[in-house]
């Protein structure tokens, strides 16, 4: 029974890991994209559409990622090319993505597909408790790999150093000759691709059908996770599993007869994020992780 619950927690956290990792990279480069929810929805509808029309779930994964990246491109054009306000543009992106996904998805309502199969690894999956780690699906394994690569890229490569320096101070980065806007565009597109994959996970794995607004606010949780993780990729995984754990335990607690109002349990992830925010940004210390130029527009002057 505990293994089944653990597996449920892991599967629930996969889309959060994917979306938060993408947003993390964008934020590290200094761009706050509040449009995650919209990008996830676009990813979800494109993934389901591609999988349902072609009959191939792997095309669905690809379609989801690309679609997320395309709408992220719109965001990038406005925020980077025209230096529009990031908060307002991100909100506009969510409105736009929600609408467009609903329109594209209208003919897909009521259709069902065979979801992404689980890739059970023989031997390892038989282990007690930790065995569930080896009963996941391609995207879930991939999400861990992406986190590893992202972490390595950000912390161990020159490219990652440039990306972080752009986020910490775009003026200095510019003065050093780094192409601030191009770096940020790359980060935003990566964020969109990941949000698209996260959205794709919903109709391909969790509930193999398309429904309008099926993300139901998970994009916003991904935003919270980035902060919860203090902009460190591996902590995103920990945070996502904790979030997933709180969600599932709230449901399991009811089945076990707990009587705490479920609203209070649902508040936990948000309050935990605030507590973590306070804990990581103590007075007088440098905010470790937080990109100093997060949310600020950059334009080169001549």
């Amino acid at each position, binding site marked *: 029974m505990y293994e089944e619950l653990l597996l449920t927690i892991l599967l629930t956290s996969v889309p959060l890991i994917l979306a938060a990792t993408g947003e993390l990279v964008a934020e590290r480069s200094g761009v706050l994209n509040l449009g995650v929810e919209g990008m996830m929805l676009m990813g979800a509808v494109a993934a389901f559409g591609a999988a349902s029309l072609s009959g191939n779930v792997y095309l669905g994964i690809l379609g989801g990622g690309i679609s997320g990246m395309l709408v992220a491109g719109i965001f990038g054009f406005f925020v980077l090319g025209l230096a529009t306000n990031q908060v307002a543009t991100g909100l506009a992106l969510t409105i736009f993505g929600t609408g467009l996904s609903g329109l594209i998805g209208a003919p897909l309502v009521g259709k069902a597909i065979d979801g992404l199969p689980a890739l059970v690894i023989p031997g390892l999956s038989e282990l007690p408790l930790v065995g569930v780690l080896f009963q996941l699906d391609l995207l879930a394994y991939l999400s861990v790999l992406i986190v590893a690569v992202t972490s390595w890229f950000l912390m161990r490569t020159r490219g990652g150093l440039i990306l972080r320096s752009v986020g910490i101070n775009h003026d200095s980065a510019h003065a050093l000759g780094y192409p601030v806007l191009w770096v940020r565009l790359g980060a935003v597109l990566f964020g969109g691709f990941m949000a698209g994959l996260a959205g794709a996970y919903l109709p391909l794995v*969790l509930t193999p059908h398309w429904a309008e607004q099926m993300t139901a606010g998970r994009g916003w949780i991904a935003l919270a996770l980035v902060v919860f993780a203090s902009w460190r990729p591996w902590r995103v995984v920990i945070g996502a599993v904790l979030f997933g754990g709180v969600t*599932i335990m709230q*449901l399991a607690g009811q*089945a076990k007869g707990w009587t705490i109002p479920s609203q209070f349990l649902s508040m936990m992830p948000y309050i935990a994020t605030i507590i973590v925010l306070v804990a990581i940004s103590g007075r007088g210390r440098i905010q470790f992780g937080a990109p100093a130029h997060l949310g600020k527009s950059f334009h080169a002057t001549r």
Partner: protein
Amino acid sequence: MGNAKLIIAALVVLIAAAVFYMIGQPPQEKETADSGALKVGFVYLTNPGDHGWTYAHEVGRQQLQDHFGDKIETSYVENVPEGPDAARVIRDLVAQGNKIIFTTSFGYMDPTLQVAGEYPDVYFDHITGYKRAANMATGNIRFYEGRYVQGVVAGLTTKSNQIGYLGAFPIPEVIQGINSFARGLRSVNPDASIKVVWVNSWYDPVKEADAAKVLIAEGADVLAQHTDSPAMLQTAEKAGVKGFGQSSDMHEFAPNAQLFSSVNNWGPYYIDQVQKVLDGSWTTGEGPDHWAGNTWKGIGDDFLVLTEFKNMPADVAAKAAAARDGIANGSLNIFEGPMQDNEGNEVLKAGQVMDDGGLWAMNYYVAGVEGKIPN
């Protein structure tokens, strides 16, 4: 530089204006020319694409339109939040000439009442509420009747004697359903019991799927739902357990898992009410009693339709059909004493039958349901 930009801007305006001129003749006068068709308006909570609650209303609207053909003209507004916007949208529908307006969610009750007071010559039909006026009626389906049959099938199907039940919110309509399910369950299997998990949402596919997985992990092998998406059934299908669909037939989503689905069939109600408006015989209801003043019908009047019994042995299907027919012809009373709540207190004495007021006052679980109602 600045001048060049201004010129470009002016050009854009000119081109846009030209394009507008070309693609668009001035908007046609709206067809206010009275074709004599009765205009019927609907207010929807979500998009009909939810494949659940609103979808069922949309199917009803189409039945209505097909039934009357040219004699009526229907339209709907979707995604109307249950707040001040609702009153505005309803007024809009009145202003557009609609003579009867169906507001299809509980939260529209007060806005509907408010607008009904302002337009005494327009008829309003609110779905699932309890407030009425001279020109505002209430329509509802006895959803709980179908759940009794579900309980019977579940009791004969379960091997673990553990049933999982997904609830949206602990409101009377949902509690009625749980209790009715438990009555059916216990009528055939005194050892089975129901675990309820509240999702706190009518519609959140991922959370519904999560709750279903949790219930399966807790040992449930038959699942029922009072939420709107097919996510629970899809989860059941994948896990190899059984379940019941909600609001519409969800067979396609779970060909091996769906035992049957209770389909909300609003068409007959809509046709009835519109017919009355056409005849000039529209009334709020029949009796002086608060609960008699609304239309609240179930399986017997085809307001609730059970889909084909599938994925079960023939004898189970036969018992299910017997329960369904018993409810339809009135020989089977779901809430007939003796009945106890799940703490052992007597609710109905032997032979006593619960009236509609009692149904709406349910704030307890009957025997067979585990736990307590939150708050």
